[in-house]
Every structure is written in C-alpha cells, then in structure tokens.
C-alpha cells in the first residue's frame, strides 16, 4: 500500500524522446488507468515505475522512497503482463508461489497465501496444471494471482486484457474491478481501450505522444475533455467534431448553416473565432427518440437531416448522417427502424455540446 509519484519523468531512447517530463500523483489505493493510442508512452511509463526501463530524467517515488536506481525486485510491486508471462515449466501452484519462494518465505506461509489467492480468483481446481493446459482467461487469472500473493505496494497492469476475446475481456474487466475492491491496493493500469479506462478507473490519465493530455475521473474526462484529442479518444462512438466560426452568437459551420453557441459558453467566444463544435452521438437524436434531451428550448438546436445509414442495435440504433457536408454519427433510442434516405428532424443537446478553439484545439470551457 503506497502512493506513487512521478516528477518530470523523462524517457529517451538515444535522441528519440518517448516520454516528455510527465508529472503524476497516484494516491494510496487509487485505481489509475493510463490510456492513449499506441506509442503514446503509457507502457513505457508503467515499465519505468516497475523498473524494467531506466528513467532518463526526473524522479519516481513509491511511498516516500525514490526508486530511480532500485532494481525491480527491490520496489515491492507486482506486474501483470499482456502475454501473461507465466513460467511455462512450473505448475500453477509454483507460478503463484514463486515470488514468495524467492523472497525466502516458509513453505507454510507460501501454501496459505497461494490458497488464499487461488480462492479469490477461482483457481483452486487448477493448481496442479501447467500453463500450457490452461485457457487464455485462466492464464490471465494465474498472472493476477501471482501478483496478489506477494501483497505488494502496488499492482501494475500492462494491457492485461488485450489478448482475450471480447466476451472474456468483459468478464475479466469485472473481475479486476472486484479484485481491487477485495484487495485494496494502488493499481496503475495501462490500456488503449477507453472502455476499460472508463469502467475501471478512479482516475483516468489520457496520454498522447509522451505527454499527459488530461487527468481526471472518468466522468470529468468524458464530460469535460480539455481538447479535441481527449474528446475524440474517450467515448464510443467518438465525438463528432465540426469546424466553423463564431458569428453573432452562433456557430457558422462549413456550409453556412448555423447552430447557436451553447449558452454556458456564450461568454467565452470571440466574434470571428475559428472553432470546432463537438457533439457526442448520444446528444444528436431524432425528435422523440433522444435520451435526456434538455427541457429548456434554449439548450436544444433543431436540424433536419437525411439518414445515410442506420445500424440497429436492438433498443437503439446508430445513425450515420451528414451535417455541413461532414459525416456525423447520431443515436436513436427506442425500437424504431429507420431507412436510409429518410429525412428526420433531429435535436442537438447544446447543453452538452463542446467548443474547441480550432488553432489550439483546446476546449473553450477551461479557458
């Protein structure tokens, strides 16, 4: 149990910089998810915390110790790897107990802790098998068990679910969340999957190109993205982003069509400013088929749109249409079936729309 602190942490490979001086404080028992596209430096950051990569600059603290020069074995952390990284020549029992055995624990203690971890993860039946005899999900559970038996200061997860199929991934996600509730420990979790980030995290750290773009709770990051990158990365399907400029309190889009500036942002725009209007698909819906549309008419814009394609998902449909010559996605809630070519009146929830400065890509909300 410990906090983790990164102070101006830099990683360079020769002349190439992978991580550009990031600062992050991870609290006691907090579940923090580092999320971002491939090559954003999230795994490198995790591996620096683990001690598997040298730290080129700055400091990493676990608890109140600076661990920059400590080898992984002295950091008292556990790690779960993407490819499970089980020891193929050992039984599940030996895999689980290996760390304790190396630490010189008594066989009795090892047996107890292994039994405890196997119990938490439902591995008790499998203890005598070798990794080759396990399914992917079971291997992942062994990898997690190996991490928890040691009662470490922190767990590090490096894309642990990306090798599993969709169904299993959902199950394991729930198990990891439960695990965190049972075994209260600091967790740093790396993923490129924003759904994992949203569902698991106490706080999300969105990274891009070796920089941290935004840190916040899942709802903060979802509802108040600081720039167009975070807006596009968090949320599925991604936020629609429509370029335009401000004219007389309205956003004028590429085809001269006009949408009112969301009232809460009215004071933050300049006349003539180039902006990007961000609207989530959930906030564009055919009249009468929306979810949580604002009651106040000033918070809603109305548009007639032609449907290009509809993907029915049961109780809702994903709709592809165009606004101002740009393809956008919208949501239709309810069992109604729509046909391509139909023209419907859509409502846009301005209360939840975003404006970003087109030059800096930063949200006008935070300025």
């Amino acid at each position, binding site marked *: 149990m410990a906090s983790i602190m990164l102070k101006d942490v830099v990683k360079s490979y020769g002349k190439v910089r992978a991580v550009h001086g990031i600062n992050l404080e991870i609290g006691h028992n907090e579940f923090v998810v580092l999320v971002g596209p491939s090559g954003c430096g999230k795994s490198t950051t995790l591996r620096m915390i*683990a001690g598997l990569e040298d730290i080129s600059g700055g400091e990493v603290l676990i608890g109140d110790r600076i661990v920059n020069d400590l080898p992984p*074995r002295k950091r008292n952390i556990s*790690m779960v790897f*993407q490819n499970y990284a089980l020891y193929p020549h050992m039984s599940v029992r030996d895999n689980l107990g290996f760390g304790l055995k190396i630490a010189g624990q008594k066989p009795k203690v090892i047996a107890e802790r292994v039994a405890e971890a196997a119990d938490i993860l439902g591995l008790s039946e499998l203890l005598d098998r*070798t990794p080759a005899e396990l399914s992917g999900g079971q291997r992942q559970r062994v990898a997690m068990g190996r991490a928890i038996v040691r009662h470490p200061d922190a767990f*590090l997860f490096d894309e642990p679910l990306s090798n599993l199929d969709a169904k299993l991934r959902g199950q394991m996600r729930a198990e990891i969340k439960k695990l965190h509730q049972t075994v209260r420990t600091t967790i740093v979790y790396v993923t490129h999957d924003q759904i994992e980030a949203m569902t698991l995290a106490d706080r999300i750290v969105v990274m891009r190109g070796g920089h941290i773009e935004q840190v916040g709770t899942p709802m903060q990051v979802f509802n108040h993205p600081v720039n167009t990158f975070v807006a596009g990365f968090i949320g599925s399907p991604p936020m629609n982003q429509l370029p335009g400029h401000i004219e007389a309190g309205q956003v004028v889009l590429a085809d001269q069509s006009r949408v009112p500036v969301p009232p809460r942002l009215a004071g933050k725009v300049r006349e003539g400013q180039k902006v990007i209007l961000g609207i989530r698909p959930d906030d564009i819906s055919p009249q009468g088929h929306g979810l949580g549309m604002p009651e106040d008419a000033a918070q809603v814009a109305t548009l007639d749109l032609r449907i290009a394609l509809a993907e029915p998902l049961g109780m809702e449909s994903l709709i592809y249409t165009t606004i101002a010559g740009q393809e956008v996605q919208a949501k239709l809630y309810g069992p109604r079936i729509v046909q391509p070519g139909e023209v419907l009146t859509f409502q846009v929830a301005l209360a939840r729309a975003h404006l970003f400065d087109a030059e800096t890509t930063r949200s006008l909300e935070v300025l």
Partner: protein
Amino acid sequence: MTPFLLLLPAILTMLFVVALPLIFSFYTSMTSYRLTRPETIEDFIWFRNYIRLFENPDFWRAFLRTIVFLAIALNAELLLGLGIALLINKITWGQRTLRTIMMFPMMFSPILVGFQFKFIFNDNIGILNNALQSLGLTTQAIPWLVDAKLAMFSIIFAEVWMSTSVFAILLLAGLFAMPRDPIEAAKVDGCNSWQVFRHITLPFLMPFVFIAMTIRSLDVARAYDIVAIMTGGGPAGRTELLWTMIARVGYDNARMGQANAMAYLSTILSIAFTYYFYTKLVAARRYMGGAE
C-alpha cells in the same frame, strides 16, 4: 498389392543400405573373420568374440575411458558453450561477426585440428612449451603428449576447442527464441540476475541443451580422428578409446570379427547415451507449449 508396390523402393533402400550391412556385420562379429584370410568368414564361432571381450581388461579400460572422455568433454563444452552464448546474447554490436568467427573451429577437418594440436603440444618443438619456457613459467619441457594424464587432457582440450561452438550456437538459438516476458516477470517477482538465470532462463534452455547433448554424445562417442593423429592411442594404450581400438584390431591386426564385436558393444553405449538425452529432451519439451 499396390500399397506394397509403392513402398517397395523405400523397403529395398532400407534393406540394402541398413538391414543387410547390419546383419552381415553382426554375422561377422560371430566369426573368426580375418581380413588376411578371407575363408575364415565361414568359421562360425557363436559368441566367442564377445566372451573374449568381456574377459579383456584392455577393452574395458578403453570402454571406461571413452565414457570418462565423453563426460568431461561434453560437460566442458556445455559450460563453455553456455557461457559464450550468454555473452554473445548480451552484446548488441558486432554480434553477427562474432557468431561467424565463433564457428571457425567447426570449419576445419578434425584430422587437421589433430595435426595442429599435435604440433602445439609437442614437447620439443611445440608452441605451448616454447611459450611457457619463454615466459619463465617452467624450465623443463612438459611432455604433453607422452604423460598419460596430460595426453588425455590434451586430446580433450583439442576436442573442446573444436566443438564448443556447436553448443554455443544451439544455446544461442535457444536464447534468441526465449520470450522476454517471463524474465521480466521474474525480475518483478524479486529475482536477482542469478535467480532469473537459474529459475527461468536455464529451464527454458534445457531442451536445447539436450538436443546439443544428443548430437554431441554421438559425435564424441565415435571420436577417432583427433586421437589417432595426436597420440595414436598411446602412450602404451593410455589414451586408447573404443574406436581407435576397434580400428587397430580391425585394420592393423586384420581381425575383423573381433573388431565387429567391439563395434556392436560400443554402439550399445551410443544408443544408451542417445536414449537418455532423448528422454530428457521429451520431458523438458512437454511443458514448453505454455511459453506464450
């Protein structure tokens, strides 16, 4: 009928290449066949050649010496080869070049290696004694190839020099194939470098070790050329191995029947070694399916 016809070429080949020579040599091992008197091939004496061998202390000495030779040479080659492989695996620059250079000893004929080491270890004109004396480490000429123990050492040295790279290359291939993740997991699990090697790397390498052992045990058990050139089995039979003895009895003394009997017994030795390493190999490979 058709299946049999289709198999016929294979059956005929096996018959002429393997079965007939095997049966014929086994038959001759039960005759008093001498190359100089061809008619003796019909003189069937049952197992008398074998019985004579069992009573012959020289044969058993050569037999044991071969086992000792195998054990020392194989272990030395394994340890050195493992060390070289681990070192080469570490370097990032010039690895290819080093790998090629490492294979040079394998490119020479064993006969030439024998001649080379015979010269190096020669007590009068050998470069080794010359070097030792010039450095002032010894004042006398050390009889490398004359003293029984030193001669055995010299032969093993030549053998190790020539063949260590076989181990090094096979183990290096094993290290290249090794997944990184379990090693990193072990580091996080608290292992220092030695423990990572002992508990993770070495078990992973064992199948490769056993493959190398299987190949090399066959190779070393039939050692003949280096010994024949360097000492000829001397002094006074002190470096006589099974195959130098077989060749002497079979060709120098022309007693082919007796030599064949020895060859059959030495084949059993080879089979025993191969079988042992092969069982180990199968056992070590069984769990490796879970490496991913």
